[in-house]
């Protein structure tokens, strides 16, 4: 008679077996522990409540336990407690996301000892994982570390279950591991990099998932020079600093502190506290901060004692550079020097970008991928699906065995390298997840490269409407059951193809995973010049003002714009498709208030700056015209005009627009729930990255069940997950 304890969740490659071994020593348990395809399996002669409680209470930092199941078995177990080696069959089947250097390792590189100042220090609680992995199983031989033979000291730590480096695959020390170099060469690369940064130079630094371009974040000239070289006029630059430096420059709540300190080490958007150069993020009230997450970052920051700009090292629109030669070739025009090393990056992963209050993921990549999401109740028997996502913030999703793997953010598929990366990712994730799809889910827009690529594959495709996918992504993340009843989807988004052939983006949907009815939404307006409308906010202002009978005002606001040609094009229907986009309505309001009317230099700039303006004390919202759930913004323009004439502040006007829009959409959703047609309200679409809008809609619905995004992006980065949910539901 013996027992087995089955542990499910993220329990491999995170120091779980030595953790169990140590507990077994403490509680005097006899038996063994192994990894297998389902997670971790413990066999023991007897089960002790203290032992079971400690498994949950003292779980290693990177582990996540989904279930602990105890059952009786027939087995003859030997004396003592052993760790069974990973055989071919019991190989580690999963790999966890990369994790920031843990406090123990940071202490170690700052202390005397053989890893003093060593840039590749790591242990089972931290370090590279997914970014160095070539293929599963996750073993040193399958990673970039394969070319480094462990020295005797490292081998001893690796083989000792009592050591925090027991089976740490990337284990290394100066005697046997990778090393840092700087180009042009210098004796002490770290000191030389620090000197250059303090001199105002721009340095390319090799990180975990790619190269960054870095400069002193307190030096306005260096920042201006970086922007000039990168042709990046206004898009906010990410910052890195130790927590005490961040606290000097940013207001950081408890939840934000917790998020920024997570092993995922995401970029977290924080409100400014003390001034830094304006050029970091012109017109924004928030800056994106992250903590140093590799020993190399720690060493450089220790040497300069100030915040660093850390922006991705790439050519405009291209993926981040990961190879040393590629960096020399492509980043040479931007960087004065390169801090590199000889541990290869296998997988390109951008930094994740997140918010803490309310929690949301804006860009899901390093530190989060390849984390999985459980599927909601009812999907247990669903068939394996591959979903191809959108066009601009592409990411794919695979579902299998009740789990969804949402891949990393890849960017605009019109870019050649992004497109190549996308095709590789499909093959790569399928191999990693041992996935052979029964169905492929694609956006119904035939112009998306993701959809076109799916058509070259031999899997049967299921077309999914863009905004249904957004809605389902939100439902799925919140574990809304397959048969949980209908939900109202308030989808506020840029543009996506709707079933009527127009471009949707401000919609009220009513439905479930299998289907939906369109109940209403924003009144459409032409997108003058197609996608150009998303680049030049004034175009949206002009068409909306024209609709409201305020053409004269448009003429005054945009005297030098080619209004006549575009009005003509609109009248003739030349590249002016109708769209109910909410994103373009934000652009229109921003343009009227003088926020980058003639052009945004990055996606969402106008809306972000409009959000940043909001006067939080304002309670009044503009009135929209509503009939039959059709929400017409025509009346708000006269209200804005009156406010401007009355010298009402732009801060109040920005707030009134947000409040009015939030209230009018919320009222429609409330009605559908209170009349019994829906059980809950799902908020999704790229506009819900706007924290103020999200908060206002939630406030207006605070007595009703509201589903919001937290770990899956509300933008098109979450689209693939929603597509997969819909395809799975339709094919169960």
């Amino acid at each position, binding site marked *: 008679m013996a027992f087995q304890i089955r542990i499910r969740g993220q329990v491999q490659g995170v120091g779980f077996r030595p953790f169990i071994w140590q507990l077994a020593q403490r509680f005097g348990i006899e038996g063994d522990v192994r990894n297998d395809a389902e997670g971790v399996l413990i066999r023991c002669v007897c089960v002790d409540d203290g032992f079971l409680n400690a498994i949950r209470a003292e779980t290693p930092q990177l582990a996540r336990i989904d279930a602990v199941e105890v059952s009786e078995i027939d087995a003859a177990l030997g004396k003592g407690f052993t760790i069974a080696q990973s055989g071919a069959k019991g190989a580690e089947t999963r790999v966890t996301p990369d994790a920031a250097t843990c406090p123990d390792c940071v202490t170690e590189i700052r202390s005397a000892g053989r890893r003093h100042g060593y840039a590749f220090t790591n242990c089972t609680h931290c370090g590279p994982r997914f970014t160095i992995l070539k293929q599963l199983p996750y073993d040193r031989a399958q990673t970039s570390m394969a070319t480094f033979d462990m020295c005797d000291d490292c081998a001893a730590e690796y083989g000792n279950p009592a050591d925090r480096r027991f089976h740490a695959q990337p284990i290394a020390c100066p005697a046997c591991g990778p090393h840092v170099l700087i180009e042009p060469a210098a004796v002490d690369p770290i000191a030389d990099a620090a000197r250059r940064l303090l001199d105002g130079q721009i340095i390319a630094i090799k990180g975990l998932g790619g190269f960054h371009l870095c400069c002193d974040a307190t030096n306005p000239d260096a920042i201006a020079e970086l922007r000039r070289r990168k*042709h990046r006029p206004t898009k906010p630059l990410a910052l890195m600093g130790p927590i005490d430096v961040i606290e000097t420059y940013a207001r950081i709540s408890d939840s934000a502190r917790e998020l920024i300190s997570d092993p995922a080490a995401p970029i977290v958007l924080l409100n400014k506290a003390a001034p830094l150069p304006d050029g970091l993020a012109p017109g924004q009230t928030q800056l994106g901060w992250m903590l140093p997450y590799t020993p190399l970052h720690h060493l450089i920051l220790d040497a300069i004692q100030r915040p660093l700009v850390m922006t991705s090292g790439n*050519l*405009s*629109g*291209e993926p981040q550079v990961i190879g040393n030669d590629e960096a020399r070739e*492509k980043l040479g*025009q931007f960087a004065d020097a390169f801090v590199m090393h000889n541990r290869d990056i296998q997988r390109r992963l951008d930094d994740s970008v997140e918010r803490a209050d309310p929690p949301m993921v804006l860009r899901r990549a390093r530190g989060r991928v390849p984390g999985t999401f459980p599927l909601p109740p009812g999907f247990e028997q669903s068939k394996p699906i591959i979903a191809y996502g*959108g*066009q*601009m*913030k592409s990411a794919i999703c695979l579902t299998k065995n009740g789990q969804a793997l949402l891949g990393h953010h890849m960017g605009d*598929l*019109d*870019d*050649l*390298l992004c*497109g190549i990366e996308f095709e590789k990712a499909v093959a790569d994730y399928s191999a990693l997840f041992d996935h052979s799809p029964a169905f492929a889910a694609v956006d119904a*827009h*035939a*112009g*998306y*490269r993701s959809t*076109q690529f799916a058509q070259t594959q031999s899997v049967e495709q299921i077309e999914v409407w*863009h905004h249904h996918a957004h809605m389902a992504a939100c439902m799925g993340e919140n574990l809304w059951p397959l048969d949980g009843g209908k939900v109202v989807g308030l989808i506020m*988004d*840029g*543009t*996506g*193809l709707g079933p009527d052939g127009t*471009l949707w*983006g401000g919609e009220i949907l009513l439905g479930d995973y299998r289907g939906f009815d369109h109940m209403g939404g924003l009144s459409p307006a032409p*997108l*003058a*010049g*197609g*996608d*150009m*409308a*998303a*680049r030049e906010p004034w175009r949206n202002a002009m068409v909306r003002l024209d609709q409201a009978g305020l053409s004269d005002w448009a003429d005054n606001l945009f005297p030098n714009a*080619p209004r*006549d*040609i*575009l009005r*003509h*094009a609109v009248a*003739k229907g*030349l*590249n002016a*498709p109708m*769209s109910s986009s909410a*994103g373009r309505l934000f652009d229109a309001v921003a343009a009227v208030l003088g926020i980058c009317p003639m052009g945004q230099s990055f*996606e969402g700039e106008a809306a972000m700056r409009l959000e940043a303006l909001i006067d939080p004390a304002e309670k009044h919202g503009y009135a929209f015209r509503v009939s039959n759930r059709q929400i017409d913004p025509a009346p708000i323009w006269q209200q804005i005009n009156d406010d401007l004439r009355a010298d009402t502040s732009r801060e109040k006007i920005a707030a009134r627009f947000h409040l009015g829009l939030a209230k009018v959409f919320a009222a429609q959703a409330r009605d559908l729930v209170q009349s019994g047609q829906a059980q809950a309200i799902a908020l999704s679409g*790229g506009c819900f990255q706007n924290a103020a809008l999200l908060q206002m809609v939630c406030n207006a619905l605070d007595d009703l069940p509201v589903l919001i995004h937290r770990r899956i992006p509300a*933008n*098109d980065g979450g689209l693939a997950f929603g597509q997969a949910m819909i395809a799975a539901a339709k094919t169960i």
Partner: protein
Amino acid sequence: MNKMLRDERVTLSHGGGGKAMRDLIQSVFTDVFEPESSEDQARLMSDALLEKGAKLAFTTDSYVVTPVEFPGGDIGKIAVCGTVNDLAVGGAKPLWLSAAFIIEEGTEIALLRRIVASMKAEADKAGVKIVTGDTKVVGRGSADQVFITSSGVGVIPADRDIRADSIQDGDVAIVNGVLGDHGATILAARGDMMLMSDLQSDCAALGHLMEAVCHAVPVRACRDATRGGIASSLNEMAEAAGLSIELDETTLPLRAEVKGTCEILGLDPLYLANEGTLVLFVAPEHADAALAAMRSVDTGRDAAIIGRAKAGTPMVTMKTAFGGSRIVDMLVGEQLPRIC
């Protein structure tokens, strides 16, 4: 010329097969084109046909243009140029054309005369003869003034083999002139754009240009970039060659007005129609000679290298001004916005 027909409009009786029709055909078409045979067929002879190994080239196209007259041309000129070009880009010396007209009831006969005169002038310039034809009259609304179908026959000399699948890694892509003028002109003439500019369609026959360049260097492949623009021609060629074609945004020959207009309207000049633009591929060592030969001909004055073929997935890419590369797709129906 039959006086009765002056200043009149086409009626259904002009298509009835009787005297009215005969008068129309005689005075508007045959008097101008002067076909050699009075039989209902052309009887063709050329020395070029006798060369051993020479091939006959045969092509057909229908032309539907609104408006039928525009700055720099009209539907007749396009019909001649388009068919001549279809022959020329394959290496054929264009010789004979046919022209079949579908005419909407109510069309001004004066307009027909202008179209026919312009066809005749263009044919003479290109050194081809319009040797046979047909007319049909349809009721109001069944056509838009005039539709023309024209077929062409030419001869490919024995030593020429111009085909997209012979493009090699490293070959250079050359265009004969600026891109998108025709498409932009048509938009302007339709009143879709209120353009101040004096844009002209690039509509031109390219037979002489092709003869000049073919005599100078071996041309590997050539296409004319008509509907769907240069992007569509290059995609077809990449597909046929099994190679990728890489363009350079900074060297694309574009008129400032066309570029500006495209920006305003959100259109991509790579997809704008051309009627006198071809793209050809030559080995890199022949690029200079090819450029010189093209520039010696009027229709090749602005010839420029726009990119090169590279081993790789068959697709067209363009290096942007900031160094990235974007994929230049085949046009899939009407382009709908994708920014979300």
